[in-house]
C-alpha cells in the first residue's frame, strides 16, 4: 500500500520530531507540541484530512531518526534534519524541501573571551550525537589545522546540561538551535553566539524513498505555504481569498483547477493548509520569529522577493 493509503487508513499522520527543541518541536506539560517542524507535520495532516490535529508525534533522538523512518515507524520525519548527499542517496530517504535554512555556529561562555571560531584550537566541544554537526565540526577543525575534543550527547537537553555544567567550552549546533539552547541556560547572558557559520544546514522534512506520491505531497504542502506567503494569503484571510480572482491564488486554494487531485489530495488542500496552519511566514513568526523567546530574524529565510532565499516552485 502507498504511504498515503496507509496514513488515511490509520486516520492520522505519524510524524517524527525532536524530543524537545524550542521553536522546532517541543511538548508542553499537556503533551501539546509546538514548533516549526511540528507545524510542517500539521500542514501535511491538514492537506490530507482537512484536520491539522490528525497527527501523532514520535519524539526521536538524532540517532534514532533515520532508522525510525526507514523502518516505517513514522510516515515522515520533520526533525530539523540537514539535507546532505549521503543521506539523500544511501539512507533510502528523500528530502522534500527546506523549511529552515540554517548554518552551524558556536555558543560559547563569555568568560573565555573568544570572539572568533578560529581561536578555538584545543577547545572541548559539546555536540549532539548523530548530527551532521558532528561531521562538519571535524571538517572545520581539520581544515583549519586545529584540534578539539568532542563530547557527544544523546539529546539536546543533555547537551545543554553538559555545557551549562562547564563540561565543555563550546556548544556547537545549528544557529537556530543555539538561540533556543541559550535560552535554556540559567543565565542566558553568560553565553554568546560566535559570528562564524561553518556550514550550510538546509533543514527540512524527510520521507522514505520509493513513494513518489507521498514525496510530492510533503514537498508541495511546504511549497504551498511558501507560495501563500508570497501571495499574501494568511490563515486569517484564507476564507476571503477564496473569492480572489488572482489565478495564482485560485490555483493555490483550489478554487480553480485540480491541483489536489494530481497529488491524490482533495482539491482544496491548499486552503486547508493555509487556513489551519498558516503560510510559511506565519509559521516562522509564531515559532521562531523575533517575537518569540528565540527571537530569530528572518535573515536568509526571508522570501526571495525580500532578499532571502525562500523560493518555492509555482503551483500550476
Amino acid at each position, binding site marked *: 500500500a502507498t504511504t498515503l493509503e496507509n496514513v488515511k487508513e490509520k486516520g492520522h499522520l505519524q510524524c517524527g520530531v525532536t524530543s524537545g527543541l524550542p521553536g522546532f518541536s517541543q511538548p508542553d506539560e499537556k503533551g501539546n507540541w509546538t514548533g516549526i517542524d511540528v507545524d510542517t507535520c500539521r500542514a501535511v495532516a491538514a492537506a490530507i484530512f482537512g484536520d491539522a490535529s490528525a497527527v501523532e508525534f514520535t519524539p526521536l533522538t538524532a540517532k534514532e531518526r533515520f532508522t525510525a523512518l526507514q523502518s*516505517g515507524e513514522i510516515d515522515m520525519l520533520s526533525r530539523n534534519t540537514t539535507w546532505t548527499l549521503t543521506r539523500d542517496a*544511501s539512507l533510502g530517504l528523500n528530502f522534500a524541501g527546506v523549511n529552515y535554512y540554517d548554518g552551524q555556529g558556536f555558543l560559547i561562555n563569555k568568560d573565555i573571551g573568544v570572539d572568533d571560531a578560529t581561536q578555538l584550537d*584545543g577547545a572541548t566541544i559539546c555536540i549532539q*550525537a548523530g548530527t551532521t554537526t*558532528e561531521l562538519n565540526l571535524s571538517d572545520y*577543525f581539520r581544515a583549519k589545522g586545529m584540534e578539539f575534543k568532542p563530547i557527544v550527547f*544523546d539529546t539536546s537537553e543533555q547537551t545543554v546540561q553538559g555545557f551549562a555544567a562547564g563540561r565543555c567550552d563550546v556548544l556547537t549546533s545549528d544557529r537556530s538551535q543555539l538561540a533556543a539552547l541559550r535560552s535554556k541556560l540559567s543565565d542566558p547572558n553568560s553565553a554568546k553566539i560566535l559570528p562564524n557559520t561553518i556550514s550550510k544546514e538546509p533543514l527540512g522534512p524527510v520521507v522514505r524513498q520509493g513513494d513518489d506520491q507521498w514525496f510530492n505531497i510533503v514537498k508541495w504542502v511546504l511549497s504551498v505555504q511558501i507560495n501563500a506567503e508570497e501571495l499574501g494569503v494568511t490563515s486569517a484571510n484564507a476564507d476571503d481569498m477564496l473569492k480572489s480572482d488572482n489565478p495564482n491564488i485560485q490555483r493555490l486554494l483550489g478554487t480553480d483547477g485540480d491541483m489536489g487531485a494530481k497529488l491524490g489530495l482533495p482539491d482544496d488542500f491548499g486552503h486547508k493548509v493555509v487556513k489551519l496552519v498558516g503560510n510559511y511566514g506565519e509559521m516562522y513568526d509564531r515559532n521562531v520569529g523575533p517575537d518569540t523567546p528565540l527571537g530569530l530574524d528572518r535573515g536568509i529565510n526571508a522570501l526571495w522577493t525580500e532578499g532571502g532565499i525562500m523560493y518555492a516552485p509555482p503551483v500550476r
Partner: protein
Amino acid sequence: MKKQTIDTRPAGPKPWYDPRVRSLFFQAIAIALVFWGGWVLVDNTLSNMQSRGISTGFGFLNETAGFGIIMNLVPYDATMSYGRTFWVGLTNTLLVSAMGVVAATILGFIIGVARLSSNWLVAKMALVYIEVIRNIPLLLQIFFWYFAVLSNLPSPRQSVDVGGAMFLNNRGLYLPEPMTQEGFGIVWGGILLAIAAVVGVRVWAKKRQLATGQIFPTFKVGVAILVFVPVISYLVAGRPLDWELPALRGFNFGGGITIIPELAALWIALSLYTASFIAEIVRSGILSVSKGQTEASKALGLPNGLTLRLVVIPQAMRVIIPPLTSQYLNLVKNSSLATAIGYPDLVAVFMGTTLNQTGQAVEVVAITMAVYLTISLLISLFMNIYNRAVAIKER
C-alpha cells in the same frame, strides 16, 4: 500377572504411541518453526530493506567515518574508517567494564565484610549503603554523578593542582604521562628482572617453608624488589624517562594522561551500584559457611585472620562465584548506559553515531549484539572453569 523371559526387545508400539517417535516429531516441528520464523524474519527484513532503498552489506565499514571521538585507546582520527570506530568503541567498553569489575569486586568485598563487622556503626553504614544504592536505578545514578557531582568540580582555570603534575577539574583528571627515551630498554630489563626475582623468591620461600617451617616475608621482600630493581636500573640507565606534564594550553590542559569525567562518572556509578549487589553476595557467601567451620578452626588455634583466609573464604567462594558471575555480566551490559552521558563506548559510538551516519541499522546492531554475546560467553566460561576448580569434592 505374569512375567516371562524372552531374549528380544519388547515389541515396538504403533509409531504415534511411541514416546521416542513423538519426541522426534515434536522436535522436528520445533526446528521447522524456528527455521520458518527465522526465514520469515530474514525475508521480511530483506524485502523491506530493498523496497525502502536501504543499502545492505558490510562495505560501509571501510568508508571514512569523518567524526571525532573524545577518547580512543586504539589510534583514531576522523579520517579513519567506520570499522575503526568499532574498535574504538569496543576498547572503550572493555576498559570501563574491566575497571568496573575490579573496583566493584574490591568495594563489594569490603562492604560485604563490613556488613558483618562486629563494629555496630560500620555494619549499619554498610547496610544503609547497600539498601540505598541498590534500590535506585543505575541510569539515575549515572546522571547524578555526571551532572550533579562531577560538574561541580572547578573549571580548568581553577583546577585543583597537585604539585604541578596532576590537575583535577570539570574536564577530567590530568596525570603526567611517562615518555620513554632511548635506553629505556634497560629499565624494561630491570622490571622483567624484578618480576623474575619475585617469582624466584616465592618459589624459594615456599620450599624453605616446606623444609624448615619458617615463613619468609615474601610479600614485603617482593614489594621491595619490585620497587628497587627498576629504580636502580632507571638511575643506571641515566634516567631515560621524561614525564609529559599536563599544562594549561588555551582552554584546556594538554599533554599527559586524561581521565575524562564521562569515564569517571560511569566508572563510579557502575562500581558503586554493582558493589552493593556484590556486598550482599559476599555476605551471604560468608554466612553460608557453617558456624562449626569457624569453631573448628578456632579450636585448632587459628587466629581470626587466618580463619577467614584459610577456612571461610575458600568455602564461601563456592557460593559466591555463580551470582558474582552474573553481576559481572550485568556490569558489562550496564556499561552501555554510557550513551546517556556521552562516554564513547560501543553503543554510543558504533550503534550510535556510526549507525546514524551510515543508516545500516541491521548490520550495526547485529555486530553489536554479537559482541556482547561473545563477551558474556567468555566471562561465563572463565568463571565456570574457576568454579569447577573450587568446587567441593563429594562422594
